């Protein structure tokens, strides 16, 4: 890895937002291709953050400051990526299901999706099935991700998936679910394609869906 990219990698791990912005610009000015900056430094850094999270080395605040630093770098990089015709590796529509106002889990997953190179359309909380469907029809994602934090709202996941099926939008679409009361068994019962117990594994699962 080029020294400029090594410093950038470390800065993302350390959550140093200001350093990341500066280092991305420095790497661009040094003539490093934007997709190289993204794929050989920034995305691997967030992957490393995810692994550290799974291993219990870093926790939610550390993941968040790393993701924030990543987003700061992406803010600098995106126009260059667009200019070079670099597309996101995939598109995701994500939301917390109807009746549920919790979003911290969903937001962590969104950060990790973006850190993995996905374009994410975040519908927010209390999302009705028809809103999911409309977004799927507009955005044409490869993945839709549903979040719920309450045992009383997890049934809305099935309602949403059934509505998507009835609307004919599940073709070429993977559905993944997650949240505190959600289990792999529940995900299977309601017809989801996958379940992830944490934000890091959600990003890994999403990557596996598009490869």
């Amino acid at each position, binding site marked *: 890895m080029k020294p400029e990219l090594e410093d950038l990698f470390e800065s993302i791990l350390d959550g140093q937002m200001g350093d990341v912005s500066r280092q991305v610009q420095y790497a661009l000015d040094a003539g490093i291709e934007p997709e190289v900056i993204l794929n050989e430094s920034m995305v691997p850094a967030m992957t490393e953050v995810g692994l550290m999270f799974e291993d219990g080395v870093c926790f939610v*605040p550390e993941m*968040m400051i790393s993701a924030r630093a990543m987003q700061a770098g992406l803010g600098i990089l995106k126009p260059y990526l667009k200019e070079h015709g670099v597309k996101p590796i995939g598109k995701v529509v994500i939301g917390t299901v109807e009746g549920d106002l919790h979003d911290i889990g969903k937001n962590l997953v969104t950060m990790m999706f973006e850190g993995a190179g996905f374009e994410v359309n975040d519908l927010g909380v209390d999302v009705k099935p028809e809103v999911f469907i409309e977004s799927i029809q507009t955005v044409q994602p490869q993945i839709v991700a549903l979040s719920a934090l309450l045992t009383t709202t997890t049934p809305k996941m099935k309602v949403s998936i059934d509505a998507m099926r009835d609307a004919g939008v599940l073709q070429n679409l993977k559905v993944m679910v997650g949240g505190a009361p959600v289990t792999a068994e529940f995900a299977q019962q309601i017809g989801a394609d996958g379940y992830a117990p944490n934000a890091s594994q959600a990003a890994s699962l999403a990557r596996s869906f598009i490869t």
Partner: protein
Amino acid sequence: MQPMTSRERFRAIVNFEPFDRLPLVEWAIWWDETIERWHGEGLDPSLKDRYDLYKHFGLEQYKQVWVPGMLPTCPQPATHGAPRMEMSMAAYEEIRPHILPEFIPQPSWTQWAEEQSRGDSVLWFTVDGFFWFARTLLGIEPHLYAFYDAPEVLHRINEDLAQWMLQVIDRLCEVATPDFMTFAEDMSYNNGPMISKKTYDEFMHPYYERVVPELKRRGIVPVVDSDGDMTVAAPWFEASGIKGILPIERQAGCDISGLRKNHPNMLWIGHFDKMTMPAGEAAMRSEFERLLPIAAQGGFIISVDHQTPPGVSLENYRIFLRLFEEYAIKAGAMSRDQLPRQTM
């Protein structure tokens, strides 16, 4: 063994001494939707008050005061989890007059004190803890950034909070000494604590060290209330002098056997898997069978792990209560064969 009063029973279990039976306790009130469903299924519609419902269902009178840390004048968050203040010392100084007011117990505390003196009621109080309170001020996500972006603000909040808690304890004890108390934290989820031990040691432990000794000096059992899997964080709290943890959510992956083995002197409250309750008697009986050996050892008050959800029918809840009483008696009988044990 002579029947114990509620207070005697609680104390015996906390101290790992023989007890007549487990207390029949709902530590958290039911969901509004649950009571509403039960009203539709034949529960007397006039039964709405928490303690009237306890009496109706034959549950023990564990009476709780949730001491508010905010005045009604405190700014309200725009949405769930949104901030009430910006992340700055100036913003905290601005909101300070609206939080942590001088505490004056309600008249009901005096009435409850009389019940407690007869042994009929166990009294407890709850305060927002050293993770929760800052979160309610800063907002869920800003609070998590604050450990890095504004540590001095968090320290200031918790310093004031600790000082306020000491005043709350003084005021409550002027009338009656609570039997236990809970620090509401909610700092864990299925994957364990949201923060690292390093963060806990810096931002929470020093403030527990200010308050917990005073609680213990007065004989008030300190308990932490945190949803999620508390396995990783349990030793942190134990090192801070915390005696117990609730609700020990089964769905979050908590395992009472492992917790008992690793923390033999800690008190556990809750842990009955609420997801068995809609499934019927066999599932509930199996769950009680799982919990019985640990409960018989003392130091474990079985209760629904969090609130009985609206998916549970009144009929199933009555089955739960019947089984609860059966196993409460069994646990008591077994305790008299096993206890007291030497506290390690």
